[in-house]
């Protein structure tokens, strides 16, 4: 795990910003995102709707707290959990042979596939670096 403070700060801002952006796009088109969730064929109409209403705001606030440094570990924790869930979901979708858009960035979404899993895994690594980084110790000397 990376321990360099500057790199960790970059991770915080980049990952936080990406989740804020992703959340805002979905908040602006809740029904479009609900349909994207429904297309995964994991949950029904009601749960798809509820997920589409709540998930984007969770992304936005987790991203805000991560990027701002205020409760950055909690933000990184939520983003890590979301990414683990997304990776499992995309993997299951591939195994089931479904051809669906990932629903990650509104109209800029791509097909759920291996490339997406690798991207999510890279983001998960960044989030875990922030989550598991030791707290700053007292100044030496």
């Amino acid at each position, binding site marked *: 795990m990376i321990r360099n403070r500057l790199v960790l700060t970059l991770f915080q801002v980049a990952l936080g910003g990406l989740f804020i952006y992703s959340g805002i796009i979905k908040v602006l088109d809740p*029904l479009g995102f609900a349909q994207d969730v429904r297309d995964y064929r994991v949950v029904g109409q009601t749960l798809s*709707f509820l997920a589409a209403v*709540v998930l984007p*705001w969770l992304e936005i*606030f987790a991203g805000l707290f991560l990027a701002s440094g205020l409760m950055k570990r*909690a933000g990184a924790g939520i983003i890590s959990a979301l990414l683990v869930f997304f990776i499992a979901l995309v993997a299951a979708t591939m195994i089931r042979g479904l051809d669906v858009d990932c629903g990650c960035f509104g109209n800029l979404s791509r097909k759920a596939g291996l490339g997406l899993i690798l991207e999510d895994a890279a983001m998960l690594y960044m989030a875990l670096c922030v989550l598991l980084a030791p707290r700053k110790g007292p100044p030496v000397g």
Partner: protein
Amino acid sequence: MSRGEVRTVLRQMAAITALSVAVAALFHLPLIKRFARGEFRDAFFLAEEFPGVRMIGAMEAEDLWAGGLAVFLDARPAFLYRAGRVPGARNVPFEGGATEIADELLAALSGRTVVVYCEEEDCRTSLELAKLLHDRGLQDLRVLAGGWDEWRRAGLPEEGDR
């Protein structure tokens, strides 16, 4: 991380989650009310944006078909259309994201009631096609909510290429 730190992070995560739920409920309250009233149960689209598009069931579709009151469009790929379809339906294989509709098709559908269907309840190409036709000026579009699967399960007439 120490046990105390883990507890703190978990508490903060719960707080962020609660905040997200509260803000989501406030921000989307009008939409949530509409869902509670029964909207969006068949499809996620705003009826006011597509006033000429309506979801229907197999019974209404059958009435329209039997009375010759509507043109049926099959939005599935050609090989599925050939295997079995609503008798008389016209195949308009539709890919998600497509934005082109042939002028000849629009002319043939102009002023008519049009019923669009795709494979089953979870497919969305029929609704996407209906929205596109609506944007191109058609006024009376019905989407068979359960698609071809619902038509077959209802035991309604079908035809296919041998």
